[in-house]
């Protein structure tokens, strides 16, 4: 077996049992990258030398029975909006072309503390907004992998790395994960520190993860979550043992959201959803229709107002002197945000209050909500990263969301289902997701691009 095919948890177990050397794992991943990167363009930097050095140290420690943490000797990829000490962090922009941070983002430091090796930085749309990255979809290189976490999704899907960090302000984790047929997970707002992450929008930005299994997503959440005094929005609420919770899974109670999500979906997505609901129901899940609250009608527009106004506030100073160094969509977004009236921004935030409360009142009836992850398969072409409208409401309310692969379209592109849980109850959400993953039984092998 080629080591690059291992999931994060499989690699962890093999390394801890001394059945796999971190150096061999790294070598296998580098070989895979060498083969696929020219086609997929998922990475901005690959830190080969430092990664090899770190893998050798980890291999020596493992042979002596010493392990730094659960991710001992496992390479991971980091979206290029996370600060990495000594490693260039460009956010896909000319503005930060030469920025080399002195410190790690909190989550990068937590990954290192858990033993992970930072293999490199993955491609992002400019400042995690709309101007696309050069990355291609491993399932068909003529299609977008989605964005903004384009490189992380493509790298994990194709087996260049077992796990990678992304982020989500609108649909930047769930959408690319679904387009690339893997697991994308956005924990509750405040669950994972955003300190050291270049912001799009302070009140909407979430850390996200890309893996090939739900169990891997649970492992990463254990490593990444917990209070961080450096992040003003970090929660002090207790963190569970998410992987242990997956030992006991049972059929969930799913709230199927047909309104909007079914109506706006392509015929293929609708067909897939009907099939999936049938499979899950036959296996014992209780699937009941969930109604959207009235405030859902304004959620997309309000999210957009908040996002562009906050992005403009963050970039205002640089924009004054370097406007033409931003790419066209980013330039337009910042300019638009600077023109949003304060009263409109505050009304959008008031709509948000109502939306959060109303969605929260819907959730106790269910383990989680169920809907398609995206309105269609990954669109053809690289000029757009696709439609985030199935994801933005859940970024707006800050509730946790996860996508798993649910099938393939007629032209063999992945489709996904999205599950949305109660705030700070990632345990229930992950259990439901794993039950669905096992029931659908689609496997977790990396995709081999043609």
């Amino acid at each position, binding site marked *: 077996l080629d080591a690059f095919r291992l999931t994060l948890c499989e690699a962890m177990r093999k390394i801890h049992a001394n059945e796999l050397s971190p150096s061999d794992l790294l070598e296998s991943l580098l070989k895979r990258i060498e083969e696929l990167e020219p086609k997929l363009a998922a990475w901005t930097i690959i830190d080969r030398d430092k990664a090899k050095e770190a893998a050798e140290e980890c291999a020596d420690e493992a042979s002596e029975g010493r392990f730094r943490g659960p991710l001992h000797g496992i390479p991971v990829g980091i979206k290029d909006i996370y600060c990495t000490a000594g490693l260039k962090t460009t956010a896909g922009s000319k503005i930060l072309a030469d920025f080399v941070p002195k410190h790690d983002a909190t989550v990068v430091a937590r990954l290192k503390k858990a033993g992970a090796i930072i293999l490199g930085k993955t491609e992002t749309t400019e400042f995690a907004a709309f101007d696309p990255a050069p990355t291609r979809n491993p399932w068909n290189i003529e299609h977008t992998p989605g964005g903004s976490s384009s490189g992380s999704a493509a790298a994990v899907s194709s087996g260049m790395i077992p796990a990678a960090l992304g982020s989500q302000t609108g649909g930047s984790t769930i959408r690319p994960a679904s387009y690339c047929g893997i697991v994308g997970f956005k924990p509750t707002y405040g669950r994972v520190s955003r300190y050291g992450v270049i912001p799009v929008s302070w009140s909407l930005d979430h850390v996200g993860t890309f893996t090939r299994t739900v169990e891997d997503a649970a492992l990463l959440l254990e490593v990444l979550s917990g209070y961080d005094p450096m992040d003003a929005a970090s929660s002090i609420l207790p963190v569970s043992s998410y992987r242990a919770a997956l030992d006991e899974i049972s059929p969930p109670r799913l709230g199927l959201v047909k309104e909007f999500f079914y109506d706006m979906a392509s015929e293929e997505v609708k067909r897939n959803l009907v099939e999936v609901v049938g499979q899950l129901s036959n296996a014992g899940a209780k699937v009941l229709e969930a109604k959207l609250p009235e405030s859902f009608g*304004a959620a997309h527009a309000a999210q957009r107002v908040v996002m562009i106004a906050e992005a403009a506030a963050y970039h205002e100073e640089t924009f004054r002197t370097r406007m033409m160094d931003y790419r066209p969509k980013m330039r337009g977004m910042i300019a638009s945000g600077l023109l949003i009236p304060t009263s409109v921004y505050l009304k959008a935030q008031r709509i948000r209050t109502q939306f959060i409360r109303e969605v929260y009142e819907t959730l106790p009836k269910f383990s989680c909500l169920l809907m398609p992850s995206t309105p269609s398969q990954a669109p053809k072409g690289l000029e757009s990263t696709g439609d985030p409208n199935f994801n933005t409401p859940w970024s707006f309310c800050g509730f946790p969301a996860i996508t798993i692969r649910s099938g393939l379209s007629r032209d063999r592109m992945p489709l996904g289902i999205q599950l949305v849980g109660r705030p700070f109850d990632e345990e229930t959400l992950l259990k439901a997701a794993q039950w669905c993953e096992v029931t659908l039984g689609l496997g977790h092998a990396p995709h081999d691009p043609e």
Partner: protein
Amino acid sequence: VAEEVEKSEILMRLLRVAAERWGKTIADEMLEMLEIAADAIWRVEKSRVGSGEEPAQPEMIFRLANRNLEQ
């Protein structure tokens, strides 16, 4: 029709201010994003929101989760 007129008025206002600040050529290049912003502004402006609703703060979902834990 009335909706389109309202949206168009917002867009014209954004375009005018953008042209004043950054010049007409650049404002025209930003048209796609200004249209998106105008649509979002219009939708937010026309939305009804309860008079008791204050602007959202991150602490709100922490409080909801706390309530959930207490229950």
